[in-house]
């Protein structure tokens, strides 16, 4: 597959080497061909053609004019339904546009469709969606692989070259892990860099929008477009957004990389330890100082995450009650019955599991032992990183403990599924930016990912390290 980059495409459009219509028709053709991957929950050719028509009439210069972008179906969009991959929002048509997608629209991009995800972003394989599994485009015939999750549809859309970039959300690894599984670049910026306004909430203190793309340069262009302060989100940060792309600098000479010893976990496949070592060697050659660091509370990150995220989710998802919008059960004889049946029938198994866990950890008598303690541990985890970043400029780890696994492998074992997030969750709890870039393959020729973590709002350093590793790998 020879995929054109966003950077190149922008040049080609600028020099009229290709028209917006030609470009998008090429993508439309591929989207239709790859229908079997079940990448999109919503796709309408008509809608794409309408967007092309409108852009052709528009003479103003726009940064992403005509660029095909796929949108995770957790972002509310006016022109397309928004389902969060849940039956409970099956026919929901927002009257409003999320902050992130509005920014992309303002810059002239074309939305090719709404991508599949785990229901309400709860999952690591895009297999909890009401609309069925998405298949990893790298699967061999008759051996379907999971694309990772929750943003598996967006990762697959980029991997299958159905768009030049895609939006995702990352709560505990939902961008970085699928990026790793699908062999694409995925960045989760610092918590607060992109407004959450208009994104159906999973866990408010962790949810963060981000980008999938073919390469680091493209990610740097797209992230700049969706970042920025928003008055409507009280947790949105008032920071200047640099021109990440213009500032890209692959010269890491004199920088220090932190290598956390706690990320060497028993049972991690050799191949993953190998690419990690490879990455470190590459950096060393580039004049980067290698610093062994310790993030002592790492082992508590996963249990901490699986208390805090479900707790917030149990409350965030209370609004889906059948009263105001979305699915409502037909079997109603009382208000309580309406709630019970609507939510029993409207939510899938994993969502219900997390609502139950979250309700439990917040309940009277358990709050202190679970939620409050988890909040304290979260603080310790954040402190670990703060200390570590006094000694290094960025941190390098593997993204996930495995390559893409077969589609239904961990379906019935939630704990195994949760372990997928082991390397991504700590940075989520600390609110730090992290990127996953493809770096090496396993014995089945499946891509593996390297994760680069940076200081709060130091996305530039993350991009610089990523682009440097990417270029050396190519």
């Amino acid at each position, binding site marked *: 597959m020879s995929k054109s980059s966003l950077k190149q495409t922008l040049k080609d459009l600028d020099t009229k080497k290709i028209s917006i219509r030609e470009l998008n028709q090429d993508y439309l053709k591929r989207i239709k061909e790859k229908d079997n991957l079940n990448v999109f929950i919503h796709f309408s050719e008509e809608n794409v053609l309408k967007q092309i028509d409108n852009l052709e009439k528009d003479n103003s210069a726009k940064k992403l004019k005509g660029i095909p972008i796929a949108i995770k179906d957790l*972002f*509310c969009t006016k022109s397309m339904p*928004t389902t*969060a991959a849940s039956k409970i*929002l099956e026919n*929901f048509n*927002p*009257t*409003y546009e*999320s902050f992130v997608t509005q920014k992309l629209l303002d810059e002239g991009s074309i939305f090719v469709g709404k991508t599949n995800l785990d229901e309400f972003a709860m999952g690591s394989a895009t297999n909890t969606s009401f609309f069925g599994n998405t298949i990893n485009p790298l699967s061999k015939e008759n051996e379907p692989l999971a694309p990772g999750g929750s943003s598996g549809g967006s990762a697959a859309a980029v991997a299958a070259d159905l768009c030049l970039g895609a939006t995702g959300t990352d709560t505990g690894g939902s961008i970085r892990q699928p990026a790793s599984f699908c062999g694409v670049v995925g960045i989760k910026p610092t918590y607060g860099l992109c407004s*959450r*306004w*208009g*994104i*159906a*909430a999973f*866990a*408010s*203190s962790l949810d963060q929008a981000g980008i999938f793309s073919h390469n680091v340069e493209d990610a740097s262009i797209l992230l700049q477009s969706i970042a920025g302060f928003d*008055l*409507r*989100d*009280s*947790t949105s940060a008032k920071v200047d957004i640099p021109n990440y792309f213009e500032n890209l600098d692959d010269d890491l000479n004199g920088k220090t990389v932190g290598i956390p010893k706690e990320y060497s976990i028993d049972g991690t496949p050799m191949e993953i330890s190998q690419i990690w070592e490879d990455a470190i060697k590459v950096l060393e050659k580039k004049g980067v100082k290698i610093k062994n660091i310790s993030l002592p509370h790492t082992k508590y990150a996963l249990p901490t995450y699986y208390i805090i995220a479900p*707790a*917030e989710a*149990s*409350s965030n*998802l*209370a*609004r889906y*009650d059948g*009263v*105001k*919008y979305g699915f409502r059960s037909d079997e109603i004889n009382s*208000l309580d019955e309406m*709630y019970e049946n609507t939510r029993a029938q409207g939510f899938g198994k994993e969502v219900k599991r997390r609502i139950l866990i979250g*309700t439990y950890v*917040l*309940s*009277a008598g358990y*709050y202190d032992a679970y*939620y409050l303690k988890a909040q304290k541990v979260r603080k310790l985890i954040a402190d670990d990183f703060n200390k570590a970043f006094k000694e290094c400029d960025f941190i390098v780890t593997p993204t996930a403990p495995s390559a893409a696994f077969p589609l239904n492998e961990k379906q019935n074992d939630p704990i195994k599924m949760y372990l997928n997030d082991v390397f991504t969750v700590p940075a989520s709890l600390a609110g730090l930016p992290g990127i996953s870039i493809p770096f090496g393959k396993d014995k089945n020729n499946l891509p593996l990912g390297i994760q680069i973590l940076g200081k709060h709002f130091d996305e530039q350093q993350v991009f610089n390290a990523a682009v440097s590793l990417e270029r050396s790998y190519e």
Partner: protein
Amino acid sequence: MNNLIKGEKHDWEMVIGLEIHAQVKSNSKLFSSSSTKFGSSPNSQVSLVDAAMPGMLPVINKYCVEQAVKTGVGLNAKINNYSVFDRKNYFYADLPQGYQISQYKFPIVGEGKVTIDFKDGTSKDIRIVRLHLEQDAGKSLHDQNPSKTYVDLNRSGVALMEIVSEPDIRTPDEAGMYISKIRSILMYLNTCDGNMQEGSLRADVNISVRKPGDEYGTRCEIKNLNSIKFIKQAINYEAKRQIEILETGGSIEQNTMLFNTSTGKTRPMRNKEEAHDYRYFPDPDLLPLEISKEEIAKIKSSIPELPDELKNKFIETYKLSNYDASVLTAEKQTSDYFNETINSDPELKNHAKIVVNWITSELFSLLNKNNQDLNNSPVSPENLGQLIKLISTNEISGKIAKDVLEEMFSSGKTARQIVDEKGLQQVTDQVEIAKVIDEVIAENPKMVEQYLAGKDKLLGFFVGQAMKLTKGKANPKMLNDILKQKLNKKN
């Protein structure tokens, strides 16, 4: 003071604490920009945030925060520089988010107190535990359709201040005085419109009974009372209910009660086991609320004179009684009216007590009779001042003045106009009064005889006859004096 109530077996004491919910006076809601106007058509003031659409986020309304701080200052309370919004989770059809944003562990206002004044001149402090900000829910309308419930979200998200008292209240009257005092403070501060009928101010009442000197008993909470009358009724009924149970050997279950305003009875809504587990936790959509000392100082400096300060000023300046001064300052409109009246003429400052009486008895009774409010009184403070001056300078009698006030009230004319038009000036001419008296004595020889024989009561008859002849205009004191003089001369 005996605050005890008699049971069958012995005396009981009530222990009462109030949770007052006061709607913050603000044009927009606590976390959204929709309007808070009362009485608009259903669901016409609902933003995406109020309806809890997916992905919508709350943003704190700074004005509501200022209003809460102001109120805290008015309640002599500690303002907390750091407070946190929590989610109180429960399901109800008119609670769109499935949780109410409230403050739990860290309220914006801490401990304070208010003073209530009794008629006998004594007063009492009621301690405040805290004041916190929270969102109101919408309204479920059960009476629009026989088989359906409709939901109106206009009120959803409106800012409330919950003011929690210590259980310092001992009688239904104290409860009434306490809520009146809070209402008065809020209205002076302009932080709540105080309209109990529209539900801008309502209270949950916690009540238990005990034998004097005992530990607190088990309490019940009566929910959502929106008038002082109902609060007193509910407390009385509930106290009797509890006493009856205890005196017959039973024990009180810690229940949440509802008060039926037509039967005057309370009934259990849910018991302790059925109580919600609200699963409070800090709202991750909102940052902790931090208010600097400078901001608090700025808000403090913007606060108007409060009822207690004003009361003390009235007592000192006009030598009014504590009770008169507290009646006068209970509502801002009353104290404003008093101030304007007494300042309308320098002469009136020496007759403050008369001014109080004319406002709080004569004018108030006219207003009540006509279902009107002091705010739109047809008699302006200046006009009332003029009337009182006519009395104090003996130009008209107090009795005539009442008629004049009635006419001022209905016609809008000034006292002077009415008195001049109708020639109501008091007759203070001794010769003229003596003439009238002579006439009365001459016309009633029998009565005079009886009077002189010792029937003193007949003096009133002669006064009445003389007043009749002068159309009530004779100066009563002069009339009395001359009449006595003349009758006694006959003896």
